[in-house]
């Protein structure tokens, strides 16, 4: 029972971070038709931006994080849209896939060459230690990570569902033409989507890097898990990405402990294959209207 609870908490914490990356991924796909194979590297880059502000700029962690978010919005939001996503929108999905794979490689290699090919320690802004809960020892850090990531994800969900801007974004996601006809500023909504994604990956970076360590290949498995989460949950539903992320995180932790550590990486992939074959629109997704 102890073990079960500990795995549950650890799995939820990991899963909540997957969910953050997966939600950004899904939003980009829905609203902008952009499939971003560099999403993992998008989580890695803010970690190094933050280290840069701290070591070169001599800043304290929190101000450094604020500047990091700003840089992310500019680089991973605005510049990514203008320089790569916009010109690629004219071509087919395959082109987009290849180009963002190349972007991921470019980001990894840049960090490796310009910073270091070795892992770097990263400041931990969260409490370390453990929590005694009726005889069960739980990691305090995991709980905080889960609450922070899940809180942000739910907040985004509320924003999309309840605010005028959020609803406009969803309208663009559902049908661009109709959205334009009813007077929504489509380009602005698309830009906003890229910015939201940049914010999500920055927070994800802040949460995972203290334990995962800042390294150029930090995003590889994270990116893959985010894709899986997005598809399992439903590629056209941000809610789905949240559910998918938590599910994948739990599956990853439980299967490693109870089934087979050696085949640990296989289980999320098997889940992915089963979902794609039985319910290609994902657990919460609607059947795809868009033919790509």
């Amino acid at each position, binding site marked *: 029972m102890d073990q079960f609870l500990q795995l549950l908490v650890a799995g939820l914490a990991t899963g909540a971070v997957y969910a953050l990356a997966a939600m950004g991924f899904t939003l980009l796909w829905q609203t902008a038709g952009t499939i971003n194979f560099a999403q993992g590297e998008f989580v890695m880059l803010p970690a190094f931006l933050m280290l840069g502000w701290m070591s070169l700029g001599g800043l304290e962690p929190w101000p450094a994080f604020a500047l990091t978010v700003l840089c992310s919005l500019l680089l991973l939001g605005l510049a990514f849209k203008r320089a790569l996503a916009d010109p690629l929108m004219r071509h087919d999905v395959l082109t987009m896939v290849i180009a963002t794979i190349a972007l991921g490689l470019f980001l990894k290699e840049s960090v490796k060459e310009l910073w270091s090919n070795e892992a770097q*320690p990263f400041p931990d802004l969260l409490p370390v230690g453990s929590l005694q809960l009726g005889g069960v020892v739980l*990691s305090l850090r995991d709980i905080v990570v889960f609450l922070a990531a899940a809180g942000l994800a739910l907040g985004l969900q509320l924003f999309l569902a309840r605010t005028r801007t959020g609803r406009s974004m969803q309208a663009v996601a559902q049908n661009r033409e109709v959205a334009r006809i009813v007077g929504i500023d489509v380009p602005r909504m698309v830009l906003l989507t890229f910015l939201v994604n940049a914010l999500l990956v920055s927070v994800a970076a802040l949460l995972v890097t203290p334990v995962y360590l800042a390294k150029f290949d930090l995003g590889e498995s994270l990116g893959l898990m985010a894709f899986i989460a997005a598809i399992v949950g439903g590629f056209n539903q941000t809610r789905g990405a949240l559910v998918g992320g938590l599910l994948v995180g739990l599956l990853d932790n439980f299967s490693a402990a109870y089934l087979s550590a050696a085949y640990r990486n296989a289980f999320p992939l098997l889940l992915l294959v089963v979902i794609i074959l039985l319910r290609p629109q994902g657990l919460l997704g609607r059947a795809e209207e868009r033919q790509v």
Partner: protein
Amino acid sequence: MRRTLAAAAVLVGLGAGGAGAQDSVLIADVIELSGGGATVGTNWKNGVDLAASRINAEGGILGRKVVVEHYDTQSNPAVSKAVLQKALDEDPFVVLGPIYSSSTKVNMVVTQRAEVPQIVGSEASDITEQGNPWVFRTSFGQAAGMPKLANYMRDGLGARTVDIVWVNNDFGKGGRDAMVAELEKRGIEVGADLSTEVQQVDFAPDVVQVRNSGADAVFVYLHEEESARFLKELRKQGYERPVIGETTLMNQKVIDLAGEAVEGVRGHVGLSADAPLESVAAMAEAYEKAFGAKTDHNGIKGYIALHIVKEIAERTGGFDRAAFGEALRGATITTADEPGVLMDVTFDEKGDIDRESFLVEVENGQQVITEVLPKLGG
């Protein structure tokens, strides 16, 4: 047109080289500079470069300048074979590296065929079991390190059951297999037996299992970065039993990365930048001055490797490869012969190395030697 383009590419690629001039001696260093082994490989490379600059400052080897060419294996056996071919085309005197055992196993066949001596940084047991007379180690094979550790777990810790966490590649699997055999011989049971991935970042489920296994200690056999992540996760979940490692776990890089979480970790170190020896401390200091980072045992291995080349070349009085191999097998090199080997070493007929080693514990971010273990050969 297309073909000529490709041809031009190949020709351009082959344009470099030609370092075989009479006043210099070429050493090829085939090593992991990118991919999973980049950390260990970079240390090794720096160690070799440091040794080369020192040897050259003192007049080179037999009056010839040492020229080291580095070739990146990308931590991939097929690439390592390709770049080794390239290195051999330049006709080097000796090949140094690689560290990853899978790459070494591909490469040693090629150097054997070319009859070029190769001094490797790998630890997998079977490398020196194949009767290849051209391959030599710079560090203990796993078959030498694990018995010492197993003894410590039985006698020092009184452990009955031990968990093993290992990385699922040939380095980790080889170490795990060697350790399991040694534990069995001593009647110690293996508790949780956990395989993990190279570049794995999330160790939560592994730590949960180790925490709940009820074993007396955990033996961790991972690469540096994964070690740091694992130790952080152990600390995060409040693990309090002994944590035991072999060389890498107490490595300086792990201490830098995991900080607090490495406190109290114990284990066996074949070579350590913190060995209580003046020679090693001086080398570590020079390394830090030259490269702005602390060396780990791989940096020392690279440094020693080139000095072994120097000493043996001088013993044979020339650059004959067959004579070099002949002279190195069974050789003992003391620090009086060649200070650059840092500690007295003895090679056996198979190419395995023997020297003193240490039991250490990490205290206040430093490796502290708790016991000096004598050479196996007495």
